[in-house]
């Protein structure tokens, strides 16, 4: 039995070491944001601040319209998440509830759009939004992410397991099609819809390229772009960007701990299993 014990110990030890290695960048991220400049330069290997200070945060709030950019990002990410939940659920319902002409062809088209990389429309979308007067507004960073094939696919996976008899009995009871969607399909596939909301929120909150191109004035920017503007090549300021990075990571980490990683994990894997 000692052989087996050793085997288990070996596996746990390697997993633990690897997990620790994965925490190191986070440790330094949090630690550095509380460090004084001298500590950062003199004791780089010590993740803990020797004399904790809030100076970096105070400096960050002076340099950046932090809360404006924070709420810009929040507003955009929440809008994307809400729109994504509503619109993708509608489309997924259409595909899972009904049989209609060209259904398979249309669904293949939906899936095929996954293959086209987003870079394709980088320039023409910019020119289009410029012509529409949408530059430096939130529309170009909200609307393009509202509907996507992968999210429709995710919700349809869950909706597909709703028994058809439920829909038909609702019809017999005189429920409209939209009513059936709202009262039966949505509550029963809330797990899928919720994951789409979460993933869309995170994708939007973490997005860099979109806000970089479309939001140019300081008061319209999101934090993702805002904290990168603090890299001043003339003055070595290590702490401000890291402090910003630290604050930016917090909402997603809170989301992860509140919603629970189990929910995340199952949602992300669901896309892969049939993918």
């Amino acid at each position, binding site marked *: 039995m000692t052989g087996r014990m050793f085997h288990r110990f070996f596996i746990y030890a390697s997993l633990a070491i690897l997990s620790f290695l994965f925490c190191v960048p986070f440790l330094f991220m949090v630690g550095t944001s509380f460090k004084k400049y001298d500590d950062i330069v003199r004791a780089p290997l010590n993740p803990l601040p020797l004399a904790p200070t809030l100076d970096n945060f105070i400096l960050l709030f002076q340099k950046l319209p932090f809360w404006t950019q924070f709420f810009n990002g929040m507003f955009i990410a929440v809008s994307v998440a809400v729109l994504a939940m509503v619109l993708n659920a509608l489309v997924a319902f259409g595909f899972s509830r009904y049989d209609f002409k060209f259904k398979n062809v249309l669904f293949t088209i939906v899936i095929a759009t996954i293959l086209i990389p987003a870079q394709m429309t980088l320039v023409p979308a910019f020119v289009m939004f410029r012509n529409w007067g949408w530059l430096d507004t939130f529309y170009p960073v909200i609307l393009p992410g509202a509907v996507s094939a992968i999210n429709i696919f995710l919700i349809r996976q869950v909706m597909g397991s709703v028994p058809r008899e439920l829909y038909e009995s609702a019809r017999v009871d005189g429920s409209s099609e939209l009513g059936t969607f709202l009262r039966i399909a949505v509550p029963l596939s809330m797990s899928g819809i919720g994951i789409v909301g979460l993933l869309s929120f995170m994708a939007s909150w973490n997005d860099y390229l979109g806000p970089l191109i479309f939001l140019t004035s300081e008061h319209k920017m999101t934090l993702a772009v805002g904290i990168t503007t603090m890299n001043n090549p003339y003055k070595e300021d290590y702490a401000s960007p890291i402090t910003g990075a630290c604050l930016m990571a917090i909402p997603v980490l809170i989301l992860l701990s509140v919603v629970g990683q189990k929910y995340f994990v199952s949602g992300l894997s669901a896309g892969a299993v049939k*993918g």
Partner: protein
Amino acid sequence: MPFKSSTGIKIAPFLFILPFFLHQAVFNLYPTIYGFWISLYSGVSKLTFVWFQNYAYVLEDERFWKSMLNGVKLTCGSLFIVLPIALGVALLINQPFVERRKGMFATFFFTPNITSAVAVAIVFSFIYNREIGILNSFLGLFGVESIAWLESPKWTIPALIIMVTWRYLGINILYFLAGLQNIPHELIEAAKIDGANAIQRLWHITLPLLRPIMTFIVFQAIIGSFSMFAEAYLLANNGGGPNDSLLFPTMYMYEQAFRFQKFGYSSAIGYVFTLILLIVGLIQIKLFQEQDDRR
């Protein structure tokens, strides 16, 4: 289907799926066609119609091919470093006795993935800093001379791959775990009784059964590597890095369009890039499926 007769039910499905097609038409199809039109023009303020000249220039553009080569390097890093480690960790986590703590480990590896690319790049440029960086200070303990991770073209890609490994290992572990869940433990046990050693079991049972999910994982790795933008751009301090060693296609498009105002040229790059990526993606899917058929 008795309800097929009513007209309402006939239109309903199309009304439900309409948002997708409307959205695609406005935000994808129209820009795609418009982008092709733009790519036929040249010039910054005064536009001239030049037919396919931009495309000819793209194909001869050394910087474009350099960016594609960097994409190939990163893809190799993903396929031969990130994915094998992810598979290894997934196999460790998938052991029956680890089952209960699976979620805990998954969270550890997964958290970097949901952290913003901007935050990750900022923290890693600090880690890679030549004088006060954590990595050089650590290596210095063993007498390793300080490495110019972000200043020397030789070291930028390794630095990027280390960062990418940290960021994308977790999601790939999850994908592999999802695949491993579908392989019954009894099958592995039976092979064990038949005298197959660990490597034989991995090669002849686990890997073939993982093939469907591998198609997806490898596809994601290729597309993701070639689409690299934020992490590399910020690691290189808003640019392509020393000697363009961190220049990636999206970054090159961004630079041409938004720094030099060459919209036509940038659109042409977009088209060539998309076409190459589509071909590579389709070949990869075909290859994996053919091997599937042979088995």
